[in-house]
């Protein structure tokens, strides 16, 4: 799927990456209070991106929406706050997304899912079944294109009848098809012994 990371870059384990991310985010939010501090943080984050070998295009796609949103917030805030403060607020918003985005850009989606499954292990005594969670996540990822196909079919059948489907009839059709699909999948899962 577009946008997912196929291969993990670097040797740091997923747990260490997430820990490093958390520490960086906390330091960013707690320590950056001035323009020089923001500049230093921006340099450090940029160096981290360069060190990880992220291409500028990838970085831009990750940060595009955050930058747009930060510009809007920064402009609005500069009306009521000193402009330096507005820039710091907007800058922190972008850098926070950049730090988390670096983990996403350099860590394979499958490795993150594996880490999640391992992390759920200790929750087994509370009734969480890591294998069942993994099955549900995998099933969902495979169901997205199925439901998207239902959506296209509904819109096409609307066009064939010369009507543009409004949001309510469209969503009703989509939900009905989704429930019917889920019931078929449920039967199939039961036939394979997923029910205990």
């Amino acid at each position, binding site marked *: *799927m577009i*946008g*997912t*990371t196929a291969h993990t870059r670097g040797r740091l384990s997923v747990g260490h990456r997430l820990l490093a991310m958390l520490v960086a*985010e906390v330091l960013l939010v707690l320590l950056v209070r001035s323009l020089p501090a923001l500049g230093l943080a921006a340099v450090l984050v940029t160096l981290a991106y360069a060190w990880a070998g992220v291409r500028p295009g990838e970085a831009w796609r*990750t940060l595009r*929406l*955050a930058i*747009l*949103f930060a510009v809007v*917030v920064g402009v*609005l*805030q500069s009306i009521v*706050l000193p402009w330096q*403060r507005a820039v710091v*607020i907007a800058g922190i*918003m972008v850098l926070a*997304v950049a730090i*988390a*985005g670096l*983990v996403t850009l350099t860590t394979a*989606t499958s490795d*993150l899912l594996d880490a*999640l499954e391992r992390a759920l292990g200790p929750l087994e005594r509370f*009734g969480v*079944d890591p294998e*069942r969670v993994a099955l*549900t*996540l995998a*099933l*969902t*990822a495979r*169901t*997205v294109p*199925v*439901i*998207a196909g*239902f*959506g296209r079919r509904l819109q096409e059948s609307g066009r064939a009848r010369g009507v543009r489907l409004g*949001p*309510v*009839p*469209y*969503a*009703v059709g*989509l939900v*009905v098809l*989704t*429930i019917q*699909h*889920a*019931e078929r*999948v*449920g*039967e199939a*899962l*039961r036939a394979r012994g*997923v*029910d*205990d």
Partner: protein
Amino acid sequence: MPISTSSAPTPTRSRSTSTDLALIASFAALIAVLGIVPPIAVGLPVPITLQTMGVMLAGLILGARRGALAVLVFGVLVLVGLPLLSGGRGGLGVLAGPSAGYFVGFVLGAYVTGWVMERLADRVPVVAAALTAAVVGGVAAVYLIGIPVLVWRTESTAMAGLAFLPGDLIKAVLATAVTAGVRRALPGR
């Protein structure tokens, strides 16, 4: 009343049946699809989609527990990097952005929507029950987490968080109409 599953005779079961699992996965996928098609472009960086309506529908149709689990599954897939959040967003950056509170609030929102729906559905007309549940859960409960985080991260006033209120109330009305339509199309479920 949320749809029941044919293989669930015991209401106090602690584990989901296979149909519950399939419904949770399918609704998580539905929420993702509602964030993709059909987008309504309004000149904002993030297109207006029906994704938040999907969160409400999860609670209204699946009930509190399964609805919240569907939203949780959707959220986990977004966080591990699938670009399923409206606007094609995905990855851990979602949790670091100023709208992270709304994203986290979706889970609570679906739960509260389902909780209210389960308690009202047999007492008042479906439309009244669904609208109340969608507004209390899908809007108020989501804002309960979303607005404080937005205020904290952007240092703006809570009023800024109300910018999306008209749109979200429209989605609550739409979710109510959709729930009524689904019940007509699938009676007895």
